[in-house]
């Protein structure tokens, strides 16, 4: 970020252009963009912290997103209270699995991108527009993804047009896929998705939907060593974000603790978690 000798705003700031902060950075300060760094050709997947499991599920009138709190570096637990679920703007949430450093940077850039557009245009992007911007961001990280530093986000938000929640998943090349009802990404995602399949119903309330999301994370932690279960000793519980017509809200710590305590108590009787009704 440089000024010319007079202290005057650099020409790039005063040049009429688009409303994208990423495009502005690409022209004026490309070094601030993730994905522009060259690494050589090694595989770094075990050398930096990686975030693990994220789940999202819709309910009538909104969407819930939850993430465990563990970051791993190979077989080491790099951090036990990392946060991976964030508000992207007032009406959407973004979370990531994969390389934690790049993931956090990507989330920050994505947040600024949405806010920047909103301020310049005086209106917000459509939910699909936001989802596409995130695609572009991931695509810029492709070279690193190929070296084990992939970031795989999950994006969800409230869509004013359909008055409900929507979920978008991504692949490391920037492919964008809309998911129905629920989805999960990260190392424990297979197990979480299995649990979601059995527990999810379309008519859940927001609170029940949060419970289902947390149950599925506990199941993921049960079978995946890289996913952190609820830490009952340190009282570290998943981060749960809820997006409705009222905007993004992080579920208060106490509410999450309540849900976890109940689920935990039940699992003393049945360690595999709630059983779904068979053959109905």
């Amino acid at each position, binding site marked *: 970020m440089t000024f010319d000798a007079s202290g005057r705003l650099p020409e790039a700031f005063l040049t009429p252009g688009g409303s994208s902060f990423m495009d502005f950075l690409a022209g004026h300060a490309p070094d601030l963009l993730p994905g522009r760094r060259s690494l050589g050709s090694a595989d770094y997947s075990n050398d930096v912290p990686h975030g693990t499991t994220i789940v999202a599920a819709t309910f009538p009138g909104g969407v819930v997103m939850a993430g465990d709190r563990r970051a791993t570096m190979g077989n080491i637990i790099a951090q036990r209270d990392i946060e991976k679920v964030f508000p992207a703007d007032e009406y959407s949430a973004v979370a990531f699995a994969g390389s934690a450093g790049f993931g956090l940077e990507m989330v920050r850039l994505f947040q600024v991108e949405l806010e920047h557009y909103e301020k310049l245009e005086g209106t*917000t992007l459509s939910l699909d527009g936001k989802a596409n911007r995130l695609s572009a961001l991931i695509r810029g990280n492709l070279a690193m993804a190929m070296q084990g530093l992939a970031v795989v986000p999950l994006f969800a938000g409230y869509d004013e047009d359909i008055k409900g929640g929507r979920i978008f998943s991504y692949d490391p090349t920037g492919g964008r896929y809309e998911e129905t009802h629920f989805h999960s990404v990260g190392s424990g995602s297979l197990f979480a998705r299995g649990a979601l399949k059995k527990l999810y119903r379309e008519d859940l309330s927001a609170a029940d939907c949060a419970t289902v999301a947390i149950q599925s994370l506990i199941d993921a932690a049960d079978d995946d060593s890289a996913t952190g279960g609820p830490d009952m000793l340190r009282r570290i519980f998943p981060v749960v974000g809820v997006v409705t017509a009222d905007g993004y809200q992080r579920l208060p710590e106490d509410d999450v603790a309540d849900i976890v305590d109940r689920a935990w108590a039940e699992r003393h009787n049945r360690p595999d978690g709630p059983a779904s009704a068979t053959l109905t």
Partner: protein
Amino acid sequence: MSVPFYVSPEQLMRDRADFARKGIAKGRSAIALQYADGILFVAENRSPALHKVAEIYDRMAFAAVGRYNEFENLRIAGVRLADMRGYSYDRRDVTGRALANAYAQTLGAIFSSGGEKPLEVEILVAEIGATAADDQIYRLTYDGSIADVRGYAVMGGPAEQVADYVGEHYQEGISLAGALRLAVDALGHDGSSDVRELTPDQIEVAVLDRTRTQVRKFKRISEETLARILSESRPDTTPSESAAEAPVEADATPTAADDSPEASPADDVPVAPPEDPDDDRPL
């Protein structure tokens, strides 16, 4: 060989200043006022889409008068600068002082460079602090002069007459409803023979509200909300040009007293950005 006419530097600068001043005076006024919980912006603006007041960053806003294309360009530059600083450092490191300084240098450089037309704009950069004492309002003119303003600032159109009116009636710690009433009345007292009564659709209003729970403190006030506040703060709604000075004087005090009981049930529709349904606090 032709010899160019000699123009003294004083004359040159005076001409450029006159040119800019005339352009700015042709427009309509904008006011920024410190009130108890933040800073209020009121601008006479008949366009619902082309704003004179806008959000820059969490605690910062921008107001301008003059040529739209010129100040819009400055606004965009300001948003870019703020977002870029916030992204490369931290959100708390984006300050009004730095932005005002960048604007001052830019305006000054354009004003004194021979090749460019001076910008016909006057702008305000306002930033709210934790308390009213920490609020900052910087006023920048076409030539890059910068002034640190306390209380209120008026620019554009018949700025002097409007500022006189505000100066007579302004008091520190004024309520939002009181400040709004005062600003709207002041815009009507533009020095012409009859006092104009501005209607809500002719006014653009926004606040930097430090009591907002969100990180971003900027909020536009919609036409409906504005109409409601204005009708509440003036019970005797009998607009007549003959009753110019008297009712205005009379309502300065009731306004402040009125708005506390009125305030709590008020269903303020929040106006983006960002929309904020919980934020139904009194105005």
